[in-house]
């Protein structure tokens, strides 16, 4: 297993946001984490990337316990998150943002190669390479966040709501790109409110409700699960 999360709880002050969550991600998979607003999806991501300390349980990456490891050291191990929403550097240009993604790396040739690959995946970013990140549209910022995370050449890419606030056509596009990234060899853990799109592309998925995992299965299974359909897919 690339990532194993075992019985993780997390507190925001006195409020318990996660109640003993367990999940796994195997190499090469796309795993989706779906749930409503406030279910704890982003919190789970923060726990994995190390931005928020966990209260109990353990997080293992490539078999090693990283529960207590600082966030920046987790990045060095190959675990990189594209943060939710506007998590890009607004004053830096597109290229500088992408360059920050490769902050932990020193292999110039490899970085140049990955930059070419990212600009190839996101032609819009190539067009706006000199523009300040803060002046991009919402969709472009989202692409920049994903592209920047790819620049660290992660073994596991964590995507927090990559489709948030995007027009339907763009959503389609960004999910296609996620699929492509995965096919090029990057494992993806994806948090989504857009359950339809996420489940259609994920190998496996977990459903999160009020800080607990209530259901798990392959993407296709959950897509046809009556309860999931009613709660998250908007069909009765």
């Amino acid at each position, binding site marked *: 297993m690339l990532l194993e999360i075992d019985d993780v709880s997390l507190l925001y002050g006195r409020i318990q946001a996660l109640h003993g969550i367990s999940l796994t991600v195997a190499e090469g998979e796309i795993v989706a984490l779906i749930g409503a607003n406030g279910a704890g999806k982003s919190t789970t991501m923060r726990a994995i*990337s*190390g*931005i928020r300390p966990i209260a109990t349980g353990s997080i293992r990456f490539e078999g090693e316990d990283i529960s207590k490891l*600082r*966030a*920046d*050291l987790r*990045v*060095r191990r190959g675990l*990189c*998150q594209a*943060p939710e929403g*506007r*998590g*890009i*550097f*607004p*004053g*830096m240009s597109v290229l*500088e943002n992408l*360059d*920050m*993604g490769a*902050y*932990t790396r020193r292999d110039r040739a490899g970085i140049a190669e990955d930059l070419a690959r990212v600009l190839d995946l996101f032609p819009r970013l190539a067009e706006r390479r000199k523009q*300040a990140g*803060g*002046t991009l549209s919402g969709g472009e910022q989202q692409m920049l966040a994903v592209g*920047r*995370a790819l620049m*660290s050449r992660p073994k596991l890419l964590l995507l927090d709501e990559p489709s948030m606030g995007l027009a339907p056509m763009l959503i389609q596009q960004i999910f296609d790109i996620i699929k492509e990234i995965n096919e090029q060899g990057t494992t993806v853990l994806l948090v989504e409110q857009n359950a339809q799109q996420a489940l259609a592309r994920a190998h496996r998925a977990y459903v999160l409700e009020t800080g607990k995992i209530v259901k798990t299965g392959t993407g296709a299974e959950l897509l046809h699960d009556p309860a999931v359909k009613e709660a998250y897919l908007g069909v009765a």
Partner: protein
Amino acid sequence: MTTVLERVRSGREAAGERWRGAPRWVRWALLVAVIAFFYALPNKEFYQYLGPIPTPGANFTQVLFTVSIYVLLAVGLNIVVGFAGLLDLGYFGFFAVGAYTVAVLTSPSSNLKTLWPWLLVVPLAIGLTMLSGVMLGTPTLRLRGDYLAIVTLGFAEMIRIAAVSSEFLKGQRGFNQIPHPPGKYADGKPFFGVLDARPYYWLVLTLIILVVIGVRNLTHSRVGRAWISIREDEDAAQLMGVPTFKFKLWAFASGAAIAGLAGALFAGKQNFVNSQNFELLNSIIILAAVIFGGSGNIVGAIVGGGLVAYMIERFRGIELFGVELYEYRFLIFGLVLVVMMIFRPEGLIPNRRRAAEFKDRRKEVIVGE
């Protein structure tokens, strides 16, 4: 009103474009001319032709020295506030640590009676100030935002109160006969004397140039990129693998070191250090100077520090309707700051990046409404 503002803005942008578009040798020539101007400035033979620039109510050379110290401090604080985005309200506290280190180790009125020469103590003062920065930063830089501002404010007050009330630090009586920097003219007269402030000013000016070169190199390196990323979005910086705590501590310590240097220079010039030199107001003035000039931009910090310190002194000896303007200097200064923050919150000479961040934040506010 708006049209005037717009025109000023577009004019300044055009000037910026021309500067960036100018050939390398033109920029170098201009830079050399500006530096030469400031080296020549404290000579009476030169400044008497400068019309209203010399201060009427105070010795202009002394004023220039004060201004240069403020510029050095502004350059240092700009690392902390401008680059790393850490709000430090007690920066003058580090200046005090530097000045007192020199005073305690060199002055005959000190209990230690070490009487070391000034030059030997300067690196010690810088080191000790840096250490105090690390000591203050280690517990507090893990916190974010407002906490740091409060803690630094408390730190500066602690230093001041210790200076006022501790027997060891001599309170108001202070330390006297602090030695001057070394150096003699050919005829045996000391280069750094009591009456002539010019050599001190030249020394500080030279150090400012060296510090600016150092800071510039630092900001163009991985360290600088890390600082800027922390300022722009600390979470995102960490998610990109930047060890944020380490770099915040670095910014804090480098800023402190520069303040320590400034304090040591100040003590060596004044020859006397007591608790009245370190009012809280000074911390506020320097912070205001950095923001006024354009935080995040070295040139902005220099211009801000210079203008603010100079403006305050310039009011001395001017009478208007029978009142001495100097008495109202902070009223005027405050007014200028308020107007400035309304019309140009990013400062006189902003960092281009920083200006984009401001726009971004404004957009966020509008979205949030």
